[in-house]
């Protein structure tokens, strides 16, 4: 008790400091219903909800003690310097650029000249706010802090061939940025949707996404988390799939001092399919926490997950995934694989897969592996003249890259492969 007491105080102190700052910031904002009301409600909820502590099962390995010591600011500042374009986006991508928590129309594609069937609204007043999760105070903080967002709608039958890229860029130190995205893919439609979060030293970056995929629609969602190594990142991404819908979701997570991402996939229609894969590179003192909740609510649907963590330095890779099969969701075919590669003696992996099955006749599997680099592979490469550090880099990068081998946007796939190799370079020095 004596040990955890100072932590609790730090958290409560942070909460009251942040509450005052958010309230102050909100008082300067012009009326933007319905977001405005939702932010105030969320702020009130944030002050009431229990804050995460390591004693809570969900926060045992993801420690927030240092988060509470941070000084953040909620006031937004317009773009002050040249913004470095995000790499890996195809030439023809439709770009929505957010800088310092605000939509930057001058850096974005003109929203009045979009392909037929695609509508995008970035007016804050038009946003249908996403709710917070009642068991997660940080999600209430995210809702209370929302300063920008977008409603992206793909009409029924529209096949949008240009990827839609949302880039959230921070250029100011110690800033809070909270962005909400609502994406609707209409019946029989298809679209590729890229999200990039990058930059900002010592910041707090929060993202919420609600993705709805209608009957027989196909959506590819690619997310790249590459914030500064001093920044905290929290993301909540929910997807619902109707009958015959397809979701292909790929995530590369490399940035942040602490990053926690929650993915909820709800399969509401028969014969839908969700295919999710994550590549994580955790180095130095980083914590990367990936949480998935996959809910099968109907017959004959499939979900597949692959999560690969390459962990070096004193970093910590945390995974919690549960597959929930509701009563009646027979013929569900769900599997979840998590592989951890530990690149140093201090690297840690904490993986917890879970199945809850209330239906008959289902096929659900999960598996976790953790291991070091295979020295036989390293020797084989060295015996061909490849220097040891390069051999270690080849094998460890291949491990993480394999989770993202089928990213359908070639430009982004190439950049992701390079980013993985670049990051791992520091982990394989011999």
């Amino acid at each position, binding site marked *: 008790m004596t040990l955890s007491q100072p932590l609790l105080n730090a958290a409560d102190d942070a909460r009251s400091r942040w509450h005052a700052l958010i309230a102050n910031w909100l008082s300067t904002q012009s009326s933007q219903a319905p977001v405005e009301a939702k932010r105030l409600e969320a702020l009130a909820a944030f002050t009431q909800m229990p804050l995460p502590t390591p004693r809570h099962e969900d926060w045992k390995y993801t420690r927030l003690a240092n988060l509470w010591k941070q000084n953040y600011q909620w006031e937004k500042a317009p773009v002050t310097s040249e913004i470095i374009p995000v790499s890996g986006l195809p030439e023809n991508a439709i770009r929505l650029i957010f800088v310092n928590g605000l939509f930057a129309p001058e850096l974005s594609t003109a929203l009045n000249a979009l392909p037929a069937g695609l509508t995008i609204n970035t007016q804050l007043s038009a946003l249908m706010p996403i709710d917070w999760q009642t068991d997660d105070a940080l999600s209430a903080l995210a809702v209370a802090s929302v300063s920008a967002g977008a409603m992206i709608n793909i009409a029924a039958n529209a096949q949008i061939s240009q990827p839609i890229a949302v880039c959230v860029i921070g250029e100011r130190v110690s800033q809070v940025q909270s962005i909400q995205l609502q994406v609707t893919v209409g019946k029989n439609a298809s679209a590729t949707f890229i999200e990039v979060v990058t930059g900002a030293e010592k910041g707090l970056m929060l993202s919420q996404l609600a993705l709805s995929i209608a009957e027989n629609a196909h959506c590819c969602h690619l997310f790249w988390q590459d914030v500064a190594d001093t920044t905290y990142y929290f993301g909540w991404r929910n997807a619902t799939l109707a009958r015959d819908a397809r979701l292909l979701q790929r995530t590369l997570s490399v940035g942040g001092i602490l990053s926690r991402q929650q993915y909820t996939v709800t399969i509401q229609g028969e014969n839908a399919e969700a295919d999710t894969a994550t590549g994580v590179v955790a180095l130095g003192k980083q914590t990367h926490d990936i949480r998935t909740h996959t809910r099968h609510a109907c017959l004959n649907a499939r979900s597949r997950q692959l999560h690969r963590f390459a962990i070096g330095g004193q970093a910590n890779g945390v995974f919690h995934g549960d597959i929930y099969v509701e009563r009646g969701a027979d013929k569900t075919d769900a599997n979840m694989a998590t592989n951890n590669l530990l690149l140093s003696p201090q690297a840690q992996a904490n993986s917890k897969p879970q199945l809850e099955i209330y239906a008959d006749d289902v096929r659900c599997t999960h598996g976790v592996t953790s291991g070091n680099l*295979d*020295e*036989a*592979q390293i*020797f*084989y*490469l*060295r*015996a*061909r*003249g*490849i*220097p*040891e550090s*390069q*051999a270690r880099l*080849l*094998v460890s990068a*291949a*491990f993480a*890259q*394999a989770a993202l*081998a089928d990213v359908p946007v070639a430009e982004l796939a190439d950049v992701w492969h390079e980013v993985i190799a670049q990051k791992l370079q520091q982990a394989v020095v011999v």
Partner: protein
Amino acid sequence: MLLQVENLQATVADKEVLRGLTLNIKAGEVHAIMGPNGAGKSSLASVLAGREDYDVTGGSAVFQGEDLLEMDPEARAQAGLFLAFQYPVEIPGVSNKLFLQTALNAVRAAKGLPALDMFEFSQFVQEKMSLLGMRQEFLTRDVNVGFSGGEKKRNDMLQMALLEPSLCILDETDSGLDIDALKAVAQGVNAMRSPDRSFVLVTHYQRLLEYVAPDVIHILYQGRIVKSGGMELVAQIEEQGYDAIAAAA
């Protein structure tokens, strides 16, 4: 002398595996090393290639005038020593093409040669592959993943052809191969024989020697070479067995 091994002693996991082995190889020679299970055949190949779980406890090995035992495995490969593995290793996620190009350029860099770009490399590897009768898909597959035993050995032969080493050690590369794969290995070796390249064929069977004629045959027994000679030794092994030859030596 290309390789001079003097009184080499080595242990693995505190077990003595080489107990004073002496072996001299001149440029252009093909040596076969035969012996029963546990004689130290694979240990010799491993020690020469620099496998780190082996401890050299005595003796010396000089390769092209340099102390081989002081060199890292990659430095040995860069200097021109090649080990064809008994069990080539699978490396998921790394394409064979990337592997081969990386290896070739590492060896070229050590020789002070410029790296080959993708185009130059492709041309070079195509030449070597057609010499070995290998299919294009070999390049796009992951290193040895899902390869049959024969394909793995062919892949090792391709690496040997690309890196153009001066000393090739084949560690029981013929074990477990069907006749076609065995012929492919022999073809790889014969195609590469030259006055400035030597081979050490470590083998349990005489089969490979029907296709690759060695200059010298050595019998390795309990960690030492107990007898050396020509092809007549093969018949002698057939007739008398290793124990009798070792006892008489």
